[in-house]
């Protein structure tokens, strides 16, 4: 009887750890691939961050100091693209890769080999993007939103960007399919859907959003491509097309995209806060429903990015109401987190600090979002620095802070070492301070009338821009603390105990630390409560 285990010509499914570079480039192990994702995302964060600093340097004072306007636009465009598609999304995918199988008792991701392809498509795409700075005409300069018809102008850099987006799309759709199938099909017995950790729910719903909208982005940039080179008129009135159609299709992707960068953050925070409050997550079921509602609503609000395009009043009002409605499920989440802290027994290690920072600053960003959603007011604020302030509150203090929380939280599990708590706390307080110095003044700039995406500005905007630029440099410097802490702790950190966090009780903490190369080769029998809390576990072989 030919079973897998004794089949001679089939590689054994629990192969050991391959050595050298082959371990990484040929990887099929979810932990290795997760590690690759995380390092790649960090490298992209640095690249995008350096572009941000280049932007802030130019804006430190009025006049043109460093870059010509064309290059400035390229920097803005690539900063947005690199951060969104290179840093935040891959970082979340990397975490999902690392932690999902451990949290739900799966031996690996459902399609381990395809998983590797999802990762290895990222470096070529990043290369195409970066390369575009050096081709004649430079990189894409139409903003990360690539609005037509501006994106039908411009040289080869725009085409490279379009193909990079295609590749990124393939990568993230495959990564998302992997996540969906892993969650739906590889849960260990006893881990029902309504027992999964919130992080698994968040990853599942995020992956669903990715599969639904990345192909739409691929479609719309393909239309830009044919408008550029094959004579079509999708975004040109001369042939019956419409530039505004680009925006509709783009934002049908774009708005769910911003939740793709927010839902996994919600998931992380929903793991971290209960751990350090030593108390179960409040309102688990309502958290699940709220996350799903946000995802569904996110398909119905896209035109809030288009309040100044001149839509009819009825459309204006529909999208305004639908957008405001998202505050309700998001509010439920915020209240649930606060209720989880209430009457807890809290300690404030670095992951908890970042999680609390997240809750505060994300809420502020969410509330400025609600102000923007009010169409009448958005007319004054659209395409001003107020919007820049809004989305850096939800993206930097939201997505990025949650990522820091996650990395600190799972660092012992991943590496078997403890990070330096002192440096972690320094990193948090430093980031918190300079983040606000950088981005809070942008609200004032936007209200006062400073447009975004400009390399030079009128004198009355000088002071706040100077403050913001100083803040950005200091914020960036602070990330070196993080980098140093990680590298040093991986090399010389203290050995982590099996359970570094007293309140942690999900499945990943029931296996050895660091996580063995192959976990759950044999599925464990679980008894689980809400939010993936493991009440009992039997079996589950590792090596």
């Amino acid at each position: 009887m030919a079973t897998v285990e004794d089949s001679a010509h089939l590689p054994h499914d629990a192969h050991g750890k391959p050595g050298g570079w082959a371990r990484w480039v040929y990887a099929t192990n979810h932990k290795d691939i997760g590690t690759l994702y995380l390092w790649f995302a960090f490298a992209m964060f640095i690249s995008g961050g350096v572009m941000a600093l280049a932007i802030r340097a130019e804006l430190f004072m009025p006049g043109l100091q460093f870059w010509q306007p064309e290059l400035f636009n390229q920097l803005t465009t690539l900063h947005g693209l690199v951060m969104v598609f290179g840093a935040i999304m891959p970082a979340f995918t990397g975490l999902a890769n690392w932690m999902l199988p451990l949290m739900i008792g799966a031996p690996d991701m459902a399609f381990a080999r395809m998983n590797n392809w999802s990762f290895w498509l990222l470096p070529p795409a990043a290369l195409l993007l970066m390369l575009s700075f050096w081709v004649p005409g430079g990189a894409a300069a139409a903003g990360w939103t690539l609005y037509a018809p501006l994106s039908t102008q411009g040289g080869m850099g725009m085409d490279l960007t379009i193909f990079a987006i295609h590749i990124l799309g393939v990568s993230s759709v495959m990564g998302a399919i992997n996540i969906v199938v892993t969650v739906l099909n590889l849960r260990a017995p006893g881990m029902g859907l309504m027992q999964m950790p919130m992080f698994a729910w968040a990853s599942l719903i995020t992956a669903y959003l990715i599969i639904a909208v990345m192909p739409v982005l691929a479609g719309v940039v393909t239309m830009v491509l044919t408008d550029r080179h094959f004579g079509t008129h999708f975004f040109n009135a001369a042939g019956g097309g419409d530039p505004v159609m680009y925006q509709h299709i783009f934002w049908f992707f774009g708005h769910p995209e911003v939740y793709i960068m927010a839902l996994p953050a919600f998931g992380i925070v929903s793991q971290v806060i209960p751990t350090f409050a030593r108390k179960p997550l409040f309102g688990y079921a309502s958290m699940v429903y709220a996350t799903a509602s946000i995802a569904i609503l996110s398909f119905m609000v896209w035109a809030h990015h288009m309040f100044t395009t001149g839509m009819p009043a009825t459309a204006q009002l529909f999208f305004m109401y639908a957008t405001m409605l998202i505050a309700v499920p998001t509010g439920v989440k915020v209240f649930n987190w606060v209720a989880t802290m209430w009457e807890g027994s809290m300690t404030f290690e670095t992951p908890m600090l970042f999680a609390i920072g997240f809750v505060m600053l994300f809420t502020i960003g969410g509330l400025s979002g609600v102000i923007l959603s009010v169409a009448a007011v958005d007319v004054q604020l659209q395409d001003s620095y107020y919007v820049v302030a809004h989305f850096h509150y939800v993206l930097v203090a939201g997505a990025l802070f949650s990522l820091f929380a996650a990395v600190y939280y799972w660092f012992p599990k991943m590496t078997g070492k403890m990070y330096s708590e002192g440096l972690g706390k320094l990193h948090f307080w430093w980031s918190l301070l300079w983040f606000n110095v950088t981005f809070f003044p942008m609200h004032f700039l936007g209200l006062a009338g400073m447009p975004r995406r400009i390399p030079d500005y009128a004198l009355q905007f000088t002071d706040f821009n100077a403050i913001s630029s100083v803040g950005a440099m200091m914020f960036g410097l602070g990330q070196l603390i993080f980098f140093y802490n990680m590298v040093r702790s991986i090399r010389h950190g203290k050995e982590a105990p099996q359970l570094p966090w007293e309140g942690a009780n999900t499945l990943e903490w029931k296996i050895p630390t660091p996580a063995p190369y192959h976990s759950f080769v044999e599925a464990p029998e679980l008894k689980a409560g809400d939010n993936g809390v493991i009440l009992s576990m039997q079996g589950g072989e590792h090596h």
Partner: protein
Amino acid sequence: MPPVLPVLLLAVLAPPAVLANQLNLQTPVTSVARDVYDLHTLLLYITIAIVVAVFGVMFYAIVRHRKSAGHQAKQFHENTTVEVIWTVVPLLILVGMAWPATRVVLAQKQTRGEDMTVKVTGYQWKWQYDYLDDGVAFMSHLSTPRDGTLKTAGGPYLLEVDEPLVVPVGQKVRLLLTANDVIHSWWVPAFGVKQDAIPGFVREAWFKADKPGTYRGQCAELCGKDHGYMPIVVEVKPEAEYARWLTAKKAQLAAQADDPAKVWKLDEAVRRGEEVYRKNCVACHMEDGKGVPGTFPALAGGAITTGPVAAHIDIVLNGSRKNAAMAAWGKQLSDTEIATVITYERNAWGNRDGKVVQPKDIKAARGGQA
């Protein structure tokens, strides 16, 4: 390296800069802008209240319910009553926000009942104003010198134009917006108006300014290289002054109008052409005619500018078929302007054609393709 210190001092110490460190929306001068201002204030108070309430509770918990304070965790994790409350209360707050907002949105859309109509066309990177009722039309360009330092031509840095839009006070001005190349956005904060100008489509907006004065804004939609350099200046004048301005403007335009039958001599054509070039072409082909390598071709020693004149006329008149950035200037410039700018390009930066392209040549070229 620019003179950092003086620039900084100027920026920090200049009284207007300090005074204008404003924290809120600009002072409104139309009813819509006032409504928006008040609505924003309302929203701001509501959100501040939410922040205070939510974080009040959270910080109370952080201070009191911490392990180091000896607090033991309670293990509750559900309570239907509070969950219903914190779903319904935000919903009610939102209804409270949406109600006044709906009114303002409808007011913003109320473009008819106008006293006058101006067609606004966005170009890379200037605005054209076309007084549809009076037959007056002109282009409005940035007038701040563009050498990277903080010189101005007599107005606020980057917010000054050669020809502002002039309108009478207290009259409802309806704007019909469109664009020629890419999307631009016409934004004057004091009026509460921001409306994208979409190429090939017409959009509407309106304002009725209560107070005479000069109001400034900027293009708000990324429109390429000089997006940061296409300001909007509106001068609101008392009725009588406006009437005087309009008469004067008409007279001035009539006087400036070139006689299309005129036969130009080389030096005067080059002089006139240089003016046209500075207004329309420098942004891409640059002062020295060298362009921006890889993006905008050099005209100094260029194949077309030194080749047969027909191809030169064709590309300026009809634009480039390969690259939409080179627009069909025939739609915006007169025969004389096109003839002289071509003459200029063929006789500048070392190009030595020596011949003069005449307006009638352009007229002929236009006729040929109509």
